[in-house]
């Protein structure tokens, strides 16, 4: 049994606490009487993964064992999640690789020849050969490359219609998936946040469908509606006429990967002398190193994942189990929402990259409603203070739509309704974006829009949004305020929350980019 989450009340003896600020790790002293929300301590990762996976595959929930579902001559498609974050520690193979190997062994034993692996990227960028190798392992990748393993292409011509959305737009789904006999989906869920929609098909839809589904109007309507009836409810267990879905849900927990980062996930009160020394070393290094090297530092002190549970079977039965399991990891107990909430935003672990400002902001704001707690940590109209430099850096290959979104769209307006009306069509129809999405490795043109819409409820909920250490120009462009220290930020916020607000700091890193697409 791991320790449940708890709330620390800051007093004069509290040591400075770890706060992630992009590629930096700060030690901040919080004002007295602030609360610090520690998430429940991570569950132990499963030690013997092979056994756990095999057990799940052989005794699934509400379904025949996988062996029975695989028949000679079946058309099988394996669909796996892409979280755009490294999953499991750097040296061990990816958990998806382990699951897929076991699945494929059974498929091979059954004599299945028609197997394809598809990354359920949704509107995210295509995974490069290198990415796929990392996820699937060299040997599996080599067996199926280049024709039988690929990423989902939302702009593909060969999409199949399998249903209809509420407003009449046809639901177009990946052609291969819809025409398969058996679809095995390998899904990941992290301790904070959720697994997303129950239907994996939401990540395999075409661009038009995604646009209709994710548009701002639809989102606001869905949020306002009492009952959420999703058109995708029909697609949870079967996609189209014949594709039966068998899901393997894996829940993850953050685990320190580097030798130096163990102390980052421990509660500061419990740091040993070594931990304190390491932390001092990290502080010094962060101060001295230039920004690009700091990003490399994050690799050493980064955070990876361990597996906490593996459940397989019928998606509509497995999904609630996963959700319940994850709910255990959330902190439910706290007295009342605070006036001011603090969040740190780290960088993802991919080498040499940092978050672009729009994604960073969306990640941060996603913590309001999809964070470590069941209810929002900050009251309506309160202030949220984030730590991130928001440097206007964009990956030249992955983010061309983001660059233009930042330079053209946000300069005109930050209001999602206006953005959706004036710019979405133009971006969606642009041939260059489509070209680089399909042939190169770029996010789809709608991606920045959906990221911005997903942040909109949080922006509406909050009164003030301040970024500590944020680049002044880009913070302003996004419509937020920037401060150089926490004290300044609280000063700025005092206009709306008063001079002695109730402050809560949500400790630990956000580990999932909430469901963007």
């Amino acid at each position, binding site marked *: 049994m791991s320790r449940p989450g708890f709330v620390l009340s800051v007093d004069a003896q509290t040591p400075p606490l770890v706060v992630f600020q992009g590629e930096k790790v700060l030690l901040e002293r919080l004002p007295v009487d602030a609360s610090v929300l520690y998430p429940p301590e991570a569950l132990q990762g499963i030690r013997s993964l092979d056994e756990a996976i095999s057990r799940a595959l052989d005794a699934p929930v509400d379904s025949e064992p996988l062996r029975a579902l695989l028949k000679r001559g079946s058309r099988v498609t394996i669909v796996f999640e892409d979280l755009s974050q490294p999953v499991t520690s750097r040296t061990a193979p990816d958990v998806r690789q382990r699951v897929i190997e076991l699945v494929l062994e059974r498929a091979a034993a059954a004599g299945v020849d028609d197997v394809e692996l598809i990354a359920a990227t949704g509107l995210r960028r295509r995974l490069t050969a290198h990415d796929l190798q990392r996820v699937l392992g060299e040997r599996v990748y080599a*067996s199926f490359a280049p024709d039988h393993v690929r990423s989902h292409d939302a702009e593909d011509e060969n999409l199949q219609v399998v249903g209809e959305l509420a407003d009449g737009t046809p639901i177009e789904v990946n052609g291969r998936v819809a025409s398969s006999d058996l679809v095995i989906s390998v899904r990941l869920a992290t301790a904070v946040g959720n697994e997303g929609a129950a239907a994996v098909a939401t990540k395999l839809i075409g661009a038009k469908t995604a646009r209709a589904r994710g548009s701002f109007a639809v989102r606001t309507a869905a949020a306002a509606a009492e009952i959420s009836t999703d058109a995708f409810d029909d697609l949870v267990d079967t996609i189209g006429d014949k594709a039966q879905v068998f899901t393997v849900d894996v829940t993850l927990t953050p685990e320190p990967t580097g030798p130096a980062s163990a102390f980052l996930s421990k509660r500061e009160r419990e740091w040993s002398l070594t931990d304190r020394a390491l932390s001092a070393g990290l502080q010094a290094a962060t101060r001295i190193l230039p920004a690009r090297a700091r990003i490399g530092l994050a690799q050493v002190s980064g955070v990876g994942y361990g597996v906490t549970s593996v459940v397989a079977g019928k998606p509509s039965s497995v999904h609630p189990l996963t959700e319940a399991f994850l709910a255990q990891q959330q902190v439910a107990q706290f007295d009342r929402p605070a006036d001011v909430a603090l969040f740190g935003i780290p960088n993802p672990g991919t080498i040499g990259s940092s978050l672009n400002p729009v994604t960073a902001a969306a990640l941060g704001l996603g913590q309001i409603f999809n964070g470590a707690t069941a209810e929002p940590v900050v009251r309506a109209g309160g202030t949220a203070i984030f730590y991130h430099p928001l440097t206007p850096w964009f990956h030249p290959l992955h983010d061309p739509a983001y660059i233009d979104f930042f330079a053209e769209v946000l300069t005109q307006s930050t209001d999602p309704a206006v953005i959706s009306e004036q710019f979405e069509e133009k971006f969606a129809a642009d041939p260059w974006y489509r070209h680089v999405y399909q042939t190169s490795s770029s996010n789809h043109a709608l991606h920045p829009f959906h990221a911005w819409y997903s942040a909109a409820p949080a922006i509406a909920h909050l009164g003030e949004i301040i970024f500590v250490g944020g680049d002044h120009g880009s913070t302003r462009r996004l419509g937020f305020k920037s401060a150089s220290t926490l004290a300044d930020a609280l000063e700025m916020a005092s206009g709306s929350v008063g001079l002695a607000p109730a402050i809560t700091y949500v400790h630990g890193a956000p580990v999932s980019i909430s469901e963007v697409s």
Partner: protein
Amino acid sequence: MAGLAIRLAVTPSVHGLEHVKEQGGPFIFVANHPSELDEALVRNALRSVVPRLVSVAVEPRGGIRGLVDQALSLRSASRLSALLKSGTSVLLFAETTRTGDGSLAPLDLGAAALGIRTGVPLVPVALLGTFRALPPWRLTVEPGRPRVSVLFSRPIRAGSGDESSAVTESIAQAIEVGLAEESRGWYGARRSPADVVVPRETEGQPEAGWRRMWKATATPTGPTRRRVWQ
């Protein structure tokens, strides 16, 4: 030291270690034995995972080392069991004879028996490319850092009631799958046993000896960069 020598001489690639890492405790590694390079290679691969390892070959080693083996009486099953109980893993080269051409010879039943007796998991290990790198007629490893692979399969836990021949058969199959990966790819190697339609041998008779030798020593067609300049 030996590890460094190995890494300088060849380009090793190791797969499947995760299966070994997850379960603690000693293992019985059962490997094929195409060349003299094998022991050092496996040791090097396992150096971080398995602290203590002792290696034994079914076919007795000649010369001084044979004498050493005699002295340590490593060939006896009871000695090996004792070692296993104390936490030392054992590497068994279980082929009854060393084929001179790198293919797999039938395995001795002793490995399985040991596993059944002690309850220690058996890990089939397939070694690829070592025959090519250091064939029996060479003194030193082939220059150019030839590629060699060490493939660990999933551990087989033998219950006390299992037949050692059945266990041996599953070990042999696992090693064969590993060996087949070179030519058929990962999935293809696992696929082929299930396929009774496509026979393994085209004619139904074993290949001529020289053909086997030829295939075993052919230059590997591993992944290379695309040649643009002719």
